């Protein structure tokens, strides 16, 4: 069932699956964001893809809120029919940034998760080959995009 | 008399000779010098004057000078022509704004550049290839008649099959160089050469047989003489087209230069050659192109026969041969500016599905043309 407008989509999500998500916000026309619980994010993702038609993976990235001690992983998804963009956000504590990998649901997230792993140190369980994407293979230590990164680990 | 005493006696004899006769003989030689030099020169002059024609043939026309000159002119022309098609100028600064020195500069640079041998390559085979490569087309070119009596190597009435036999050797070398250079790109390139030559060689041989059939003899000179009334391109138009396409395929010119496809295989089987080795292989490419073009002209465009204007056959001379060669080279370079490169499977499909049956059809038509409908 394709929701006509953003507000209906958000209301429906909150009504149907309150236990899967913390919050759902409408930013502007055709742009919605959903903050999911880390443990049940796979189910919510499957529902979003199968029932709500968010089948096109756009991108994924993380933000490091060092003052609040948390990292937020954002998945940008697109519904090809209604052209809605949905930002699926997952908050992870900074001390153990673990998260189930989304590659079974959206296969193209493979690259983006590898990049988030090497830049932020977020461990994606179930990822086919979690290796370096952009950094050299012999990169030792240091997650560059974290706020507390002081440039250690640069190969000599 | 055991060996030691023999050696000892020999040394003694040598020393005695050195002390006594050696100075005498040296003095005699010096005294006879004033008369020796003019005599030597005279002998040399007689030698050159007497067999001037074979010397000219060996060195100039089908020989070394012509081959090198053709390679240089073809390279220069191709770069200038391609440049013009691309709205730019091409070699400009070397040689007074025309760039003709550029080719010489390139050849010199290639010959003096240090060449690198990959560490675990088969050294012998790797170094043998660039030497063998130019020899085969050069050998084949010696059979081409540039004038009725201007044939360097007289194969006794069988010059066409000998030419095809020698030219048939050509694909063997890239195959073992590809393996010898111990590089993945060269291996793929050499396999491609093998596929290409098999699919390209057989239609050519059949078409050549068709022309020999029409001319009634296997000798290239007789084939050219048989074309006096009319060039074979007209009665055998299908053969003419097949041979032209086959020529581009054999010489690995652009629509079919699959083995050395720069965009996929770096340089195909020539990837590991550098310096003088690369210079030889590049020259070999132009030589095989020259060889096949000359055979194409002899078989279909009436070799050295001048065109018969209003029934009056113009005096046949080497000039016509070179003129036709120039025209064909211009057409092939124009084809290079216009067409992309075909994939290997498309080239093979063209070779087996189209060229082969057409050449058989062409052979059948010549038989009918020659002996009417006896069968």
């Amino acid at each position, binding site marked *: 069932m394709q929701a006509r407008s953003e507000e209906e989509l958000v209301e429906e999500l909150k009504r149907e699956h309150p236990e899967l998500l913390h919050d759902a916000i409408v*930013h502007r026309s055709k742009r919605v964001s959903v903050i999911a619980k880390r443990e049940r994010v796979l189910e919510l993702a499957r529902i979003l893809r199968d029932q709500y038609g968010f089948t096109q993976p*756009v991108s994924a990235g993380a933000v490091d809120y060092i003052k609040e001690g948390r990292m937020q992983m954002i998945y940008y998804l697109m519904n090809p029919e209604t052209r809605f963009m949905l930002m699926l956000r997952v908050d992870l504590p900074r001390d153990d940034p673990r998260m189930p990998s989304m590659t079974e649901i959206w296969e193209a997230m493979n690259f983006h998760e590898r990049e988030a792993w090497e830049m932020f140190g977020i461990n994606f369980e179930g990822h086919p080959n979690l290796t*370096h994407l952009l950094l050299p293979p012999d990169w030792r230590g240091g997650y560059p995009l974290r706020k507390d990164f002081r440039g250690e680990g640069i190969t000599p | 008399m055991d060996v030691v005493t023999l050696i000892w006696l020999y040394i003694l004899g040598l020393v005695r000779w050195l002390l006594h006769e050696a100075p005498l003989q040296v003095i005699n030689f010096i005294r006879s010098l004033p008369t020796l030099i003019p005599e030597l020169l005279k002998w040399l002059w007689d030698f050159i004057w007497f067999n001037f024609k074979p010397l000219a043939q060996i060195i100039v026309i089908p020989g070394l000078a012509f081959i090198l000159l053709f390679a240089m002119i073809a390279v220069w022309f191709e770069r200038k022509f391609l440049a013009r098609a691309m709205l730019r100028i091409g070699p400009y600064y070397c040689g007074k704004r025309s760039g003709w020195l550029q080719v010489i500069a390139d050849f010199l640079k290639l010959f003096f550049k240090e060449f690198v041998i990959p560490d675990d390559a088969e050294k012998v085979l790797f170094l043998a290839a660039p030497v063998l490569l130019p020899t085969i087309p050069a050998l084949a070119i010696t059979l081409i008649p540039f004038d009725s009596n201007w044939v360097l190597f007289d194969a006794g009435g069988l010059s066409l099959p000998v030419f095809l036999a020698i030219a048939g050797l050509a694909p063997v070398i890239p195959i073992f160089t590809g393996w010898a250079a111990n590089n993945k790109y060269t291996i793929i390139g050499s396999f491609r050469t093998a596929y290409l030559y098999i699919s390209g060689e057989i239609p050519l041989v059949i078409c050549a047989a068709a022309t020999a059939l029409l001319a009634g003899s296997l000798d290239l000179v007789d084939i050219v003489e048989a074309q006096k009334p009319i060039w074979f391109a007209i009665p055998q138009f299908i053969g003419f087209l097949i041979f032209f396409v086959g020529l581009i395929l054999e010489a690995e010119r652009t629509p079919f230069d*699959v083995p050395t496809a720069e965009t996929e295989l770096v340089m195909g089987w020539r990837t590991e050659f550098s310096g003088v080795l690369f210079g030889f292989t590049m020259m070999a490419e132009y030589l095989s192109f020259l060889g096949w073009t000359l055979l194409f002209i002899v078989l279909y465009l009436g070799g050295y026969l001048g065109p018969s204007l209003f029934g009056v056959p113009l005096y046949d001379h080497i000039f016509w041969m070179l003129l036709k060669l120039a025209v064909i080279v211009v057409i092939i370079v124009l084809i290079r500016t216009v*067409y992309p*490169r075909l994939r290997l499977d498309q080239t093979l499909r063209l070779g087996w599905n189209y060229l082969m049956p057409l050449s058989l059809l062409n052979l059948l038509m010549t038989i009918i043309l020659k002996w009417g409908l006896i069968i």
Partner: protein
Amino acid sequence: MTEPEIKPEVMRISWGPQHPMSGQTRILIDVDGEVVRRIIADIGFTHRGIEKILENRTFIQGIVPIERMVMADTANIALGYVQAVEEALGIEVPERAKWIRSLICEMGRINSHLYAFGLQVECTGYFPAVFLWTTVDREVLLDLFEKLTGARWSYSFFIPGGVRADLPEGFRDEVRRAVEYLRRRFQDYWDAMVENPLFEMRNRGVGVLSREDAIRLGATGPVLRGSGVDMDVRKDEPYAAYGDLDFKVITEREGDCFARLKVRFHEIEQSLNIMEQIADEIPGGPVRTKVPLFPRSKPGVEALSRVETARGELGVHIFTDGGLKPYRVKINSPTLRNMYVFERLAELNRVLVADLPVILYSIDPWYLDCDR
């Protein structure tokens, strides 16, 4: 990237950065004879950490580094960043500036598509005529850029609040003459390239990407539209002046390399129409609103701007923390998505070694954009 293990029956070739046609990336291909069994894209050779650089640049200074992400199409990339900054800081843009932005973006798109033609023609074999024509025809556009912005490639002409300068006088009929000239030139391209039977043989039916696979694998730009999905950010979320410009979104059905080439070809015609519309109906008025040189942002605001670059949809997501510099800039680069599609193409259909560069350059990758 650690290489996955090699199966016994295939030969692994490193189509490395030192290859005449590979660009600045390494592609590992498992080859069985002539057939490519598996493609592994090993990207990251030109990773400059632009997202980290932008965290240390103020909002206006950030324009110059982000333009270096795609040098062929700097206008659209800079527009993505500048619109995100304007949304985050709440800056208004006058109408005339929007129209000038659309004009420059369309000229940049044509410039980038011409560059893509040249490479796609070059990799089907040394086919020199058309490749150098594109270089000559880009000269026409580069001269227009030089007159308008002062630079030929990296214009850094967009500023939060508008554009840096107005159109020089006499510029509009120069644009009209250039559009006339380029329309005639594309007739030659159509005859020499698209109608060329050998070129068609090399491109038709090669690297086919079906509609569902294109969506599932997250393709974008001409790669997506070549498979029949009419997604174009200029139509979905009109930004700059695309709201009141009329143009068509080009799609092809077959989804092979030839379809992608035709999509780019017709997109250029649409861009030329847009340039003509802008030259005729551009409104008057100011070109730039007053914005301080070092604007300060409000804490905790985030803004995502989506822009249709020549290679696909670019998303720039800026997070601010009230300082002079953005807290975090997340760039969703189009080429990274297309490179994943390229990696999966080996399993979708039969790819030969000779087809590899043709497919790679029908996706029109820009490795600096993919590595950020």
